[in-house]
């Protein structure tokens, strides 16, 4: 069983919802990332989404764009991320790690080579923002045979027919994008999200996790009531951005943001 499936089955038994933080790897510099990942786990992360920095992050708002720029300035490459995951695995064999990013860095390495390296490093899932299931016929199966989950997005604009296709191809969990826009853009409407998730429940047994627009304990708790997981990115990356001059305090800040959400969700 994949670590992601394992984790959701444990959470279900405990009656808890998944808290899934996102950080961009290599921000503010590569040697901090593994420490941040451990800090996130200590503060209550169930799964970690590790962002692959890209020169042209088309689906991201200014917060994550700048995170990508900082990471790239430090020379962070996809192969470095795989090393980070391998290092993380030396101390943590339980927490699932999902790589999230854009297709081109993976294209450049080659699908099969990447899939091999990711599996060896201890990655559990891959979410490629600009690769819908229709374009994943080649890549998807290469992930599957290595027990890596191909995670897909569902958006407020997704038609029922498309949602069915996505549910049929998706593994690990479905990432429901709560609003039309880029990352870090606005605050979501939990009631509307609840309404959108309902038909998806009919289509799939995959856990439904919600991202975009979750910034504090209150919004995390609201979403946790209706979804199986809460994904938080820009709210964390903001703390990194604010403290690039004093990186030693970032891990503590990430922990406090996440711990507040954990407490609110579990209350």
């Amino acid at each position: 069983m994949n670590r992601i499936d394992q984790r959701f089955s444990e959470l279900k038994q405990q009656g808890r919802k998944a808290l899934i933080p996102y950080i961009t790897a290599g921000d503010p510099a590569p040697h901090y990332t593994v420490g941040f990942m451990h800090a996130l786990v200590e503060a209550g992360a169930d799964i970690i989404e590790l962002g692959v920095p890209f020169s042209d992050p088309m689906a991201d708002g200014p917060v994550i764009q700048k995170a990508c720029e900082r990471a790239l300035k430090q020379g962070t490459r996809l192969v470095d991320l795989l090393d980070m995951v391998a290092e993380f695995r030396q101390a943590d064999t339980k927490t699932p790690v999902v790589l999230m990013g854009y297709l081109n860095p993976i294209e450049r390495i080659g699908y099969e080579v990447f899939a091999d390296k990711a599996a060896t490093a201890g990655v559990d899932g891959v979410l490629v923002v600009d690769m819908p299931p229709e374009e994943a016929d080649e890549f998807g199966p290469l992930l599957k045979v290595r027990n890596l989950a191909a995670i897909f997005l569902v958006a407020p604009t997704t038609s029922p027919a498309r949602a069915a296709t996505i549910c049929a191809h998706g593994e690990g969990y479905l990432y429901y994008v709560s609003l039309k826009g880029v990352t870090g853009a606005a605050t979501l409407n939990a009631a509307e999200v609840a309404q959108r998730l309902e038909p998806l429940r009919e289509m799939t047994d995959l856990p439904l996790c919600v991202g975009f627009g979750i910034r504090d304990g209150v919004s995390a708790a609201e979403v946790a009531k209706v979804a199986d997981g809460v994904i938080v990115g820009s709210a964390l990356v903001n703390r990194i951005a604010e403290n690039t001059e004093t990186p030693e305090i970032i891990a503590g800040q990430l922990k406090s943001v996440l711990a507040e959400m954990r407490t609110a969700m579990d209350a």
Partner: protein
Amino acid sequence: MTVSATGTHDSAPDTRFGELTRMPDARGHYGPYGGRFVSETLSYALEDLEQTYLSLRDDPAFQAEFDRDLAHYVGRPSPLYHAERWSRTLGGAQIWLKREDLNHTGAHKVNNTIGQALLAKKTGKPRVIAETGAGQHGVATATVAARLGLECDVYMGAEDVQRQKLNVYRMRLLGARVIPVESGTRTLKDAMNEALRDWVTNVDNTFYIIGTVAGPHPYPQLVRDFNAVVGREARQQSLEQIGRLPDALVACVGGGSNAIGLFYPFIEDDAVAMYGVEAGGDGIETGRHAAPLASNAPRGVLHGNRTYLMSDEAGQVSDTHSISAGLDYPGVGPEHSLWKDVGRVKYVAANDKEVLEAFRELTQMEGIMPALESAHALAHAKVLATTMQPDQHIVVNLSGRGDKDIMTVAKIDGIEF
């Protein structure tokens, strides 16, 4: 389609490239290229656009409206002009210029914006957005938006805003908002990123008018189809004015919309050679260029399609360089990538220095000032002409006029206004 040697299928031209007329496939792929690599929020809008386009493409009323606008608003057909004096001086083949520079707004770009604006009108969306490099597509979009009373926002790299101040002001006069993009390399690719971010946020009320044959399916297809009027006219005009098809076609390639417009209607005419001229910048060997095809860049995915894409070993998109803002783009339309692979079109590059020489030559010998983008095509046509005979003919797409580039050239000449 391959016809038998006896030539009984006289309606079909003898061609090795019939397959190319059946592109893209149902999913927007051109062989291994193209596709729809976008985040999920945009998938619905693209499916919708595809349906709208496919239903209107064969609708005679829609075609008639498009043709009417091209005739009476754009001023088509554009002339095919024999650059006799320049040809004589070069001493080789005869060079003919397809005068897209004479279109309303000064470039081929308006063919496509007219078409997409008609689509926008059909969808009832009150707002259009566009990305622009040199500003020609932005101007063409602002123009059709003004005519149809649509709100218009144009994204333009901050560096290009500096390079093309005149066009920026033109867009503002037309009532558009020009939004400088400060992210990344502050050029065309970043403008396209920002336009996509806008679209993903405002997809309900906004139509995205993409300016080139790149982007996610169906954009490469519909931009090609709207620009193909250039090649249809040029083909007809060649038959009338030269008495036969030309021996070669030459066009500049950034994203590749003017080249595809000229080439596509000739794609099955095997005897017509085709040359796409990319921006060589400081020279391919320096790495400072914008020529993904001519430099054999690796395959990659950017802005919704797979294509030849300049990127580093880690898959980060490379900085590009060109004297012309309109060609300063690391990728290229996916159909061009396929045409390169099958050998239908030869892709070459002209560097900044050669381009400036061609710009000056045409201005001084024919009294026609080309856009710096189009001067790339002229630079290669010069080289090509001298390898050919005076009874041979080259058609060059003079895709835009050079007024917008006067400041750039003046700066190179050390002149300040």
